[in-house]
């Protein structure tokens, strides 16, 4: 595996110190992971939406748990924490108590998706320029 000391700087809203350690300068692998994130998140989040609509709290918690892991791998460690709280609340609260949190989580998810789309394109350009 290449171990390129990279000059690429991740967006400030990501945990760039963690990403630097996770990818160890391998921007090509980072591009792959970001691409996989953009492919997988909509599929997993659809399950979150379905569980919410069906008011199935245990399944909702499990689906958010899965998305939480994805956010972590692209450096959204704060969003990962938010998902953890929501996941915990799914096992103790009622659906009505979760509606505002769900809305907030969905907004944050959409923002995260836009950031990662941008980062993915930046990584692609960076890797093409330094290939």
């Amino acid at each position, binding site marked *: 595996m290449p171990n390129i000391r990279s000059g690429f700087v991740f967006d400030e809203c990501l945990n760039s110190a*963690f990403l630097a350690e996770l990818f160890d300068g391998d921007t090509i692998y980072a591009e792959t992971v970001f691409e996989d994130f953009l492919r997988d998140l909509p599929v997993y989040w659809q399950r979150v939406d379905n569980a919410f609509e069906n008011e199935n709290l245990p399944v909702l918690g499990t689906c958010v748990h899965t998305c939480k892991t994805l956010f972590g791998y692209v450096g959204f460690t704060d969003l990962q924490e938010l998902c953890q709280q929501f996941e915990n609340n799914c096992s103790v609260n009622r659906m009505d108590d979760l509606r505002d949190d769900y809305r907030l989580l969905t907004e944050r998810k959409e923002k995260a998706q836009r950031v990662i789309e941008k980062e993915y394109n930046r990584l692609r350009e960076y890797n093409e320029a330094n290939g």
Partner: protein
Amino acid sequence: MKLSCIIVEDIQIAADFLRKFCEKSDLVEVKGHFLNVSDALEYLDREKVDLLFLDIEMPGANGFDLLDRLTYSPMIILTTSKTEYAFNAFQYHVDDYLKKPFTFKRFQESIQKLQLKAAAAQASAVAPPVSAPSTDTDFLFIKAEDKLIKLKKDDILFLESMRDYVKFVTPARNYITYSTLKNMEEKLIGPNFLKVHRSYIVNITKIDDIRGNTIYLLGNQIPIGKGHRDEVAAKLNIL
């Protein structure tokens, strides 16, 4: 010495990272990746590996269900993003716990620890008897309390796995040796010893009675693991 492993993980990104780290470390060979417990168990019924990277929350059965059904004892590294499972991990005597997402450095620390454990377990294997066994009972020597202690097999009630150690329980006292239950299993092959749970081997001649899925020996209660029930029933002629 490379460890063989399988990855049981339903999130592809997480599994890919693990595979990549295994290749990078050059200490672990990935034999397979499974998205659920059922497929993993089917593989483990046919093939043995040294190590399992095991997620907990997966579709269908969870990681602990897999551990209940295992019929042998590979090393286990739980990979999860929930810290609430730490207590369960302790109960199942797993070898390490990696909170996702983890870095290569954290992964490497875990694998190196397991490698040392595997090497130490081999080195501290039960020594062969220094004299010929008596005509009535066999015995073995275990390293404990800075000496080799002679134990008559017939005195042993059961053995219990305690992470990096094995506890021998006799009516008189207990002995703790630095080894693995798997190692002891290989040394105690014979008609009287039976593995009834991932963490227990019992001397079947010492069983008082069995109630439900619990074996009673001289006041001790030993659970029968789900993956061992059929074998226990067959061996003990339970009708």
